[in-house]
């Protein structure tokens, strides 16, 4: 889902700042087209989307929460936040990375097809990573794994030589620490 970084000819002459990864939480009215507005803003202005999740979180108020992980220089991250705030159906934008270290979790479903020693090893590793077996036959497993990004990346990497055939991932859901809401 990556698009090229937001650099016009003019900006490219001056970019000297470090690229940072930030997790933004965007609370929006759950109305038709709202996701298209957010995604269109990112593609139209050349911002990155590393991960994106969206779901209605408050049914009575019809509010959806979009969690987007993006990368850019501090000036670009600031731009993204302000551009999102400008959209009419957007209630609030919170940069969780600035507020504090957010808790970020992702769910992955991982299919491994193998026999013999590789199959045993896959199951052993799954236990070590606390992955659940949600489907199995004598020739495959489907694991369900929840956790931080690097844990999931690590698990997928380990499964590769053990017969990894397919991966489905949700993208990151994130929330700030402490008792206060966003």
């Amino acid at each position, binding site marked *: 889902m990556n698009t090229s970084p937001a650099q*016009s*000819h*003019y*900006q490219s*002459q*001056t970019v000297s700042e470090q690229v940072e990864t930030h997790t933004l939480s965007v609370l929006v*009215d759950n109305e*038709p*087209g709202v996701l*298209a*507005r957010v995604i*269109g803003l990112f593609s*139209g202005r050349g911002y990155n989307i590393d991960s994106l999740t969206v779901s209605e979180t408050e049914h009575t108020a019809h509010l959806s929460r979009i969690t987007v992980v993006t990368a850019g220089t501090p*000036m670009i991250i*600031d*731009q993204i936040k*302000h*551009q999102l*705030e*400008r*959209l*009419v*159906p*957007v*209630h609030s934008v919170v940069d969780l990375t600035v507020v504090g270290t957010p808790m970020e979790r992702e769910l992955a479903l991982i299919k491994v097809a193998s026999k013999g020693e590789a199959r045993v090893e896959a199951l052993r590793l799954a236990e070590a990573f606390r992955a659940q077996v949600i489907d199995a036959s004598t020739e495959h497993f489907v694991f369900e794994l929840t956790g931080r990004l690097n844990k999931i990346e690590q698990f997928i990497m380990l499964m590769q030589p053990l017969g990894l055939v397919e991966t489905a991932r949700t993208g990151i859901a994130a929330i700030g620490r402490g008792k206060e809401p966003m």
Partner: protein
Amino acid sequence: MARKMTGARMVLKALEDQGVAHMFGYPGGAVLPIYDEIYQQDKVQHILVRHEQGAVHAAEGYARSTGKPGVVLVTSGPGATNAVTGLTDALMDSIPLVCITGQVPTHLIGNDAFQECDTVGITRPCTKHNYLVKDVNDLSRVLHEAFYVALAGRPGPVVVDIPKDIQFATGEYTGPSKVRHKTYNPPVSGSQDAIRAAVELMGGAKKPILYTGGGVINSGPAASQLLRELAHITGFPVTSTLMGLGAYPASGKQWLGMLGMHGTYEANWAMHDCDVMVCIGARFDDRITGRIDAFSPGSKKIHIDIDPSSINKNVHVDIPIIGDVGHVLEEIIRVWKARSAEADKAAQKAWWKQIDKWRAKKSLNYKKRDDVIMPQYAIERLYELTKDKNTYITTEVGQHQMWAAQHYHFEDPNRWMTSGGLGTMGYGLPAAVGVQMAHRDALVIDIAGEASVQMTMQEMSTAVQYDLPIKIFILNNEYMGMVRQWQELLHEGRYAHTYSEALPDFVKLAEAMQCVGIRAEKPSELDAAIKEMIKVDKPVLFDCRVEQMANCFPMIPSGEAHNEMLLGDAEEEGDIKEAISEKGKVLV
């Protein structure tokens, strides 16, 4: 109070309740119920254009000359897609518009029905916001909200897409509400701390400059008055972007002229050398900054803007003030007057001395000729002969636009309508139609080029139909001059497709369109011809034959800094071709 009526009736009722007197549009299958309602009332006058792009530009001209939102009505499919250029233009220049589009009935949406297009999909990136109304009971709320969104904060175009079955359906109408919008509430007054910090910085400035833009005009006439007062009490020099011309009077002593790519020598050098820059309702566009890492390197920057996303977008600023220009200027003036310290008069005197040295370059000078009309001379004469009248100027896009900005001098806001951000050729003629509709007794002139004007030429018929005596003043050099100028800069003068071949005889064309055609070919006949144009109470096509190879100077070549300007005499010294670096060539 809620009342039952059809969706089509609601549209007219909502326009009436919003105080709309004029709308620009073109009928079609998917808006017939609304046109039927137009037919049965006389509160809102509909102006029939000849192409939907013309409707949007006319509404833009109307909005920019009145401060009221422009209203457009077009049909589904091609009606909506033809409006896209105008909508994008309005978005780039922050012009408040409400554009109502017809749509195929809801049960046919997504079916590739006749004259169907995904209007909200297509217009999403070129509007401030858009709506597809799927329930007639939402329609009146959405229409009122559309006006609110178009005008609130940084203005812009809003599309309301109404399927035909919704226009026929009956539902509850509710009037405009004063309830706070649930999500969109842009700030109006700036932070007091920021304002105090800004005044502090301005007070200590030795080489200050006020860099103003279209935000001052958009904030309303009071903001222009406050800008004048601020300039007066601080003594700071004033420059403006293309969009902001007229906010500070061109006759003012502190006026440096327009800045940017074709701005004056003094404005650009003052921007480069200043120590405190106060940006008021402008957005550090690439036409203004030139090479961005060499942009005003020694200055502290204050930026007043109602749109937080404009802050730090291109240039890092030291003191951002988020708010409406009028409100913020009022506060700045109050705080400035209340503080005890005096401005650094001695330093400012030296600064003005330096500015006068730059002014002495007379960067807008050109070689006058007796045998041929120089385009700059044509604008100068047009200005001299119309300045004492109630005049509004629109333009197309190109060299003529820049010459108009340089040589026509504006004393008041809302008098200058030009496509700044998008640079839309064909803007000026329909915009003039819109301006004249709002100001029936005014002298409305579209300063045009022979190439641009052919893009929306058909709107001459609209002008004739509604007795709008607009004057189309064509600087005819038989070239797409600005493109040709860039071909000289970048491509060794290989003029690929920039010669305007097979031009119509504009005088005969005017006659065929029931307008008046006037031609001037020599400087000696120019004044009389312009006077005749002003006297005629009909739309006029004025074919002003000008020197064909003249170029627009001064100029900052793309990729260069403010202090690397080309002056008019560069052309003769032959360095125009070497003026641009390899790196600059990829820029637009």
